């Protein structure tokens, strides 16, 4: 017991060391047999935001799959996603680089298209990052919004996706992005341009799965321009060509009914949609308002939502 001091010291040193070692070996490695499984696991891991292991999985898949094969592309696409989405510190530059490569290798192909879109998307979203240092001229602080110039750059990037990958889903999504990008600038001429763009696009792609999104965007645009008839029309179209028909649509119905009722002056449309809401969602809280409205119609609502007061 003479050497008490050092004993105590070493004891703690050891136990803490042990703890550290233990902490090292708490992540078991998973070895995958074929690339497909690795890729699936990778995405599963991304979805539980375990990005380290996701990267490992995708890298394994990339190495184990034949170069140039679809698997190889998917694997690297996954890897790029892992880079892009990791929190708290996304590896955006790596992601951009990898996406760029993929979009070059897979010319005109599906994955290439998504990668190209991802590039534009990353740059687009980056403009809305918190505490982004903003170029002079635009309002400062977290309330800063991207300037028209910056957004135009993004717009060309989206446009490139449309041109380089015709006929892909990604291209269609890119079009929607352009429409939204114009409308989200609030400034009337831009909004009008956005609406025009989308209407033309719809004319060309009447079959697209993105019609719903397109019309939703138009609706918002018309709302901003106080073109309530247009808004109503768009809303109606949007609800017609909705793909996930089994979703909860009570608020959608109500919005249509309300716009028709209070803003566009279409009592019949209003009545039908109030009624639809009451019939389809009897326990929804809005039923109360709908029934009040139904009693009142066709008389216009007493208190109009004073949009002028808003903007």
């Amino acid at each position, binding site marked *: 017991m003479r050497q008490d*001091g*050092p004993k*105590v*010291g070493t004891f703690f040193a050891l136990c*803490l060391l042990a703890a550290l070692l233990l902490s090292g070996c708490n992540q078991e490695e998973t070895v995958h047999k074929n690339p497909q499984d690795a890729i699936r696991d990778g995405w599963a891991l991304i979805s539980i935001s375990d990005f380290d292991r996701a990267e490992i999985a995708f890298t394994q898949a990339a190495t184990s799959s034949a170069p140039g094969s679809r698997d190889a592309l998917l694997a690297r696409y996954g890897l790029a996603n892992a880079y892009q989405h990791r*929190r*708290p510190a996304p590896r955006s530059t790596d992601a951009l680089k990898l996406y760029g490569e993929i979009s070059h290798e897979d010319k005109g192909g599906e994955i290439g298209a998504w990668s190209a879109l991802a590039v534009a998307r990353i740059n687009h979203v980056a403009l809305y990052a*918190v*505490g982004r240092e903003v170029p002079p001229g635009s309002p400062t602080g977290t309330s800063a919004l991207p300037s028209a110039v910056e957004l135009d750059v993004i717009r060309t990037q989206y446009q490139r996706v449309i041109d380089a990958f015709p006929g892909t889903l990604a291209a269609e999504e890119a079009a929607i992005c352009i429409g939204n990008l114009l409308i989200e600038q609030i400034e009337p001429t831009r909004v009008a341009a956005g609406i025009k763009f989308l209407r033309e696009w719809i004319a060309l792609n009447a079959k697209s799965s993105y019609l719903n999104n397109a019309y939703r965007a138009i609706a918002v645009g018309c709302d901003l321009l106080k073109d309530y008839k247009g808004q109503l029309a768009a809303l109606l179209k949007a609800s017609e060509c909705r793909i996930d028909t089994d979703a909860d649509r009570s608020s959608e119905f109500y919005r249509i009914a309300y716009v028709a009722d209070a803003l566009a002056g279409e009592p019949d449309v209003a009545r039908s949609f109030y009624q639809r809401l009451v019939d389809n969602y009897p326990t929804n809280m809005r039923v109360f308002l709908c029934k009040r409205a139904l009693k009142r119609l066709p008389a216009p609502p007493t208190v109009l939502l004073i949009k002028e007061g808003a903007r």
Partner: protein
Amino acid sequence: MKGQNISLRQARYHLSIYLFLLPCALFIGMFAYYPAVNGIYHSFFQWNGGDVDRFHGAQSYSKLFLADTEFWLAFKNALILGIANIFKMAPSIVTAVCLHRVRNARLQFVYRVAFVVPMVIPILVTTYLWKAIYDPSNGALNTILQSTGLMKALVWISSSAAHLSENFDPLGFFSWLGALFRAGENPAWLGTPSLAMLALILRDFPWVGTFGVLVYLAVLQSIPRDIYEAAEVDGAGWLSKFRYIELPMILRQVRIMMILVIMGSINDAGLVMAMFGIEGGPGGVVQVPALFMYREAFQNQNLGYACAIGVVMFAVILICTKLNDWLVKPGD
């Protein structure tokens, strides 16, 4: 007294003594300093503890100093509490002195034993108890006040204070006092904004902290008996003995206790939270800085901001203790 100074040159003969630092250094370093330093580091970040960890310089601090007036108001409450707590140290001192003057050794021993036992009561229990005592309709306090007629006295004080306040009212003190107690009304100690702080201060009457008593007692023990005898020969009375013999002895402990008390009143959110809830009472009349910090950390998940608040609070405490050192000179 201290160990002698060791110069660097001599140090090599004593290097082994640094090993003694190892255990506590490991403990403190790992589990006390790392989190604390980590906190200071993160006070310059926008940090939610998880997936948001963004450096944004001293923004937290500037926001805290410029925008957050309520935080500084919380310090006002802490100040009131602190001052009150300092006065609340007196009973402990008195008790200690009385205990010290108990001549019979056995009896004194028994007393001291008795003083230690209540330390085991968990704070949760005392909180329940005091909430029950303060209950307006069935609480012990109001019952006592009513039955002893003290309530009438209080009401009288209030009303006369109200009268006074009409022509002379420093810091609105009298008007405050004037509004406290009304005839035929049970004061709601925890519910009335004007009473809440008072209730918080009155809590734990008679404010005899066991630890404090024992510490003072410890010092008093070391006063040689002959001094007292000498004093008695000079015909020193109860008070003068205290003034000239005992007080100077314990002054240093008083100072230490004072520091602890000040720290407590700034750092402790638990008591207020338990008595008044997270918002710090009606109108937030009793919210203390620590409460503010707690809310930022665990309600608003602004951990970075909370860390900044922590740093500021620490700075304030540091200043207070320095002031204290400088105001209250050690007795010896």
